[in-house]
């Protein structure tokens, strides 16, 4: 089957049948920010940071498959502003304290804050009451920082396919929970993967917090997405 032709901000792009806008944009080296999406995972469309405009309508680029002749708006002032607002909302609806977070510099939410130049959230801080689970070996869970992207729930599994993380409760009360027994049995690589799968500092591998010092971390010198854009 031949490639599907479409445009992003006027630039001609191609996609394979069934590819989403995010996947196809990546091939054309166009950055569409994602937070809940992770390469190789079935998209969930929970965070909306990838919102683009298709035919005048707002769509989540991580869940929307490309169709022939589709006209996608991505890097427009309107969408940039909308994404900035989403980032600000995520910051106020949790307890995101970058100065005392081990993930600072490697955090995708923070990196998006840098990319969209968030000086201060325009919304009032909600200071929700969230709990920390620290009595598990290898991993600890700080729900203050969770953005409920569900990347851990969807991807972190034991060798025999059991979920290590799950969602407890629903709606505004939804929290991520951890199966302590399964977490204890995670291999070294799997525990590290769980930490890296978390876009924020909610899931952390114990004992290695500051192995890479602040200043030398993933997003300390280069903006998120700059790799893809080749800048």
């Amino acid at each position, binding site marked *: 089957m031949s490639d599907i032709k479409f445009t992003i901000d006027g630039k001609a792009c191609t996609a394979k049948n069934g590819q989403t806008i995010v996947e196809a944009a990546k091939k054309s080296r166009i950055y569409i920010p994602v937070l809940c999406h992770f390469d190789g995972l079935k998209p969930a469309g929970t965070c909306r940071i990838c919102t683009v405009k298709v035919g005048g309508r707002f769509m989540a680029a991580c869940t929307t498959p490309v169709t022939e002749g589709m006209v996608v708006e991505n890097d427009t002032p309107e969408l940039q502003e909308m994404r900035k607002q989403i980032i600000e909302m995520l910051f106020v609806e949790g307890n995101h304290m970058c100065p005392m977070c081990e993930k*600072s510099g490697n955090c995708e939410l923070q990196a998006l804050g840098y990319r969209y130049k968030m000086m201060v959230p325009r919304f009032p801080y909600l200071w929700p009451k969230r709990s920390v689970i620290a009595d598990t070996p290898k991993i600890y869970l700080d729900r203050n920082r969770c953005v409920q992207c569900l990347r851990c729930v969807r991807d972190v599994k034991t060798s025999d396919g059991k979920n290590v993380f799950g969602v407890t409760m629903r709606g505004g009360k939804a929290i991520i929970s951890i199966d302590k027994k399964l977490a204890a049995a995670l291999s070294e690589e799997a525990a590290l993967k769980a930490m890296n799968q978390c876009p924020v500092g909610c899931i952390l591998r114990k004992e290695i917090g500051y192995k890479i010092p602040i200043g030398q971390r993933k997003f300390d010198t280069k903006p998120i997405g700059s790799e893809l854009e080749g800048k």
Partner: protein
Amino acid sequence: MSKPVVATASLAGCFGCHMSILDIDDRILKLIELVEFNKSPIDDIKTFTKQCDIGILEGGCCNSENVHVLKDFRKNCKILISLGECAIMGGVPAMRNGIPIKDCLQEAYLDGPTVDTNTDKIIPNDEELPMILDKVYPCHEIVKVDYFIPGCAPRADLIWEALVALVTGSELKLPYEVFKFD
């Protein structure tokens, strides 16, 4: 034309942001050519002696005294700047938000593992002491704040660039390396 007048204060902060102001090194000589300092811990002027142009605030509000100083700054300064994460979102002191105030005081003065001299088991409650607030508030949730300089502490280069841009009316350069939340 007279030089713009700058005032600074540290509310519920650690003085790290003020240290970062001093971290502009020898540019401080250029700074005193550009501006005049009024109420500030840097020159130890304790009260406003005139109307100021720029007020720089470090730290959020954790007690009634912080609120008083902040409102005083709003009254006496044309432009207010929140400097650093504590002023912007509460920072480390705001980690107590979500914990009942009674539990905080009890832990600090009665039950904490390092409390051993408080033999009378007193939680300080003198009327001279500022009243502690129910939670720590960022400055802009108390008064209108005009500009924000993030960082913990904000990088000296960012503070310098921001002040120069503001005083000279030039556009702020915001290099990626200095714009940080940590």
